[in-house]
């Protein structure tokens, strides 16, 4: 509550007082409602058990594990190049972004670094997958609130970005393009011009969503002041990414840490919002999509020439050691702690995925809200089930 404006605090207190009055006047009976594991309003198979008093949530608990596929155990029986095939599928909307931290961790252990051109192309693909990821979030957000139109806009314009990723990597969804020491291949002919065109299109898409959804009065009424996560709570629960920035914490790993990627060479703004409500989270993500298109444009301007693959041995054996690398993925901080014993495959990989921490705040933030707001808050927290359960 510390970082809220006085007006917000007053409205919060007034709301609490009104609820208390209502509960005295109308005796309500408790009820347990089970949302999921298969529910149209959840992204995948999350199950949430809520206890209701009337229409108010008194207790909520997400039940994970319906999409647990055992990544951490599977990586122990795969070789390093094979692991990227698996970790692609953790956050399936921004697949390329999942490969990068793992490859960076392996490169850190091998003490090699990708050539500059490979780093830049990696960053371009990283930001493209961010755009593909968040643009679908913005469309899906409308569906959660009962407006189907933005989803059509999202799927229409997302196709352009997927086409770009496909033209480089050969895969729409799961590129598996990153190699230890660089990339599999160079950019195709005509990629730069086409990407510029698509980035203009995506900025138009952001404007459309801004008009259609974010600026919509009903949307604002449903999201403003709903599901407020104050700054200290957000930090305590380990939120990251746009959820944290929407609570007013200026923290972005792209800017705040040094990794062999090209973010240091471009100029971009890290958007934050002081409110910490559902609206702030959606707004920050919209701005991030805009910012990502600008990052891609700048990267295309200064794309260095040269090879895309460093000299690496044919059979990759990573020397013994431990390495932790995390990057700012579309959903938040994603990191890999790789323990190597000098074999063909990792000895142990700990995956820190953003959604698991982001959803852990749900029991806190859902307490006291009304049932329709449960869906709004969960939608604005934005999780991918593969990223939660791994």
């Amino acid at each position, binding site marked *: 509550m510390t970082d809220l404006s006085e007006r917000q605090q007053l409205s919060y207190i007034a709301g609490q007082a009104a609820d208390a009055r209502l509960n005295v006047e109308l005796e309500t009976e408790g009820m347990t409602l089970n949302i999921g594991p298969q529910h149209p309003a959840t992204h995948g198979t999350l199950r949430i058990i809520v206890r209701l008093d009337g229409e108010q949530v008194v207790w909520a608990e997400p039940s994970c594990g319906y*999409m647990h596929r055992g990544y951490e155990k*599977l990586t122990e029986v795969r070789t390093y190049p094979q692991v990227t095939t698996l970790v692609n599928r953790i956050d399936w909307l921004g697949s390329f972004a999942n490969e990068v931290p793992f490859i960076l961790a392996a490169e850190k252990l091998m003490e090699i670094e990708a050539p500059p051109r490979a780093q830049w192309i990696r960053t371009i693909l990283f930001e493209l997958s961010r755009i593909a990821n968040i643009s679908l979030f913005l469309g899906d957000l409308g569906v959660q609130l009962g407006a189907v139109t933005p989803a059509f806009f999202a799927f229409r314009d997302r196709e352009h970005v997927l086409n770009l990723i496909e033209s480089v990597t050969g895969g729409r969804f799961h590129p598996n393009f990153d190699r230890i020491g660089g990339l599999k291949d160079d950019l195709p002919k005509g990629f730069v011009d086409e990407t510029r065109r698509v980035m203009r299109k995506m900025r138009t898409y952001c404007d459309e969503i801004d008009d259609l959804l974010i600026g919509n009065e009903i949307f604002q009424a449903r999201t403003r002041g709903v599901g407020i996560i104050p700054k200290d709570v957000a930090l305590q629960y380990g939120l990251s990414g746009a959820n944290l920035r929407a609570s007013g914490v200026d923290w972005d790993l792209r800017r705040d840490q040094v990794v062999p990627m090209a973010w240091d060479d471009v100029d971009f703004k890290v958007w934050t919002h002081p409110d910490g409500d559902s609206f702030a989270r959606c707004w920050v993500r919209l701005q991030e999509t805009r910012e990502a298109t600008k990052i891609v444009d700048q990267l295309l301007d200064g794309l260095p020439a040269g090879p895309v693959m460093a000299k690496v041995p044919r059979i990759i054996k990573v020397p013994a050691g431990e390495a932790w690398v995390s990057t700012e993925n579309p959903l938040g901080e994603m990191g890999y702690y790789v323990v190597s014993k000098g074999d063909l495959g990792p000895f142990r990989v700990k995956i820190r995925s953003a959604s698991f921490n982001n959803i852990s705040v749900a029991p806190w933030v859902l307490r006291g809200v009304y049932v329709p707001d449960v869906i709004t808050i969960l939608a604005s927290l934005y999780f991918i089930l593969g990223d939660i359960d791994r």
Partner: protein
Amino acid sequence: MGLVDRGRMPGAIEKLMNLGRSYSMWVYQWGLACCAIEMGAAFASPRYDVMRLGVIPLPASPRQADLVVVSGTVTDKMAPAVLRLYDQMPEPKYVISMGSCANCGGPYWDSYSVTKGVDQLIPVDIYVPGCPPRPEALLEGIVLLQQRIKHEDMAAKWRGETTEPLRREPIVVGGGNVA
């Protein structure tokens, strides 16, 4: 439908009804994993637009659905829910298994928590291979299913005889057969 399940329906009417059934399939919204996004692209995107094939991807309840696309990894924890949702669907019902995970476990073939193939749980009509399959592949699967429905013996289907497992060869999109 006494006439139908006794098999005394004239052939022409049966053909007509099969035609109607094949072009008014209601698909249950059932997203499991990565493939659900490609399924969403096939169903909700203006580029692929599944409604032109006469498929209506709207019902949010399995009780109104004719077709279900199992799109993604079925885990052992999810398996009872999959079975329960399938049981809630009314006959005649069809299943498309989309993606390698639902077909056979896919990249998680040695995982401890993944059900290796949804066909262990429910009978599958069409297998769409790929990880994930392109939306076009899913549309191809739906077209193949429609062709099958057009040549179906409605009486047997109505009596529920053809929903037994191993009742007939499932179709694999892109050729090949199920081992």
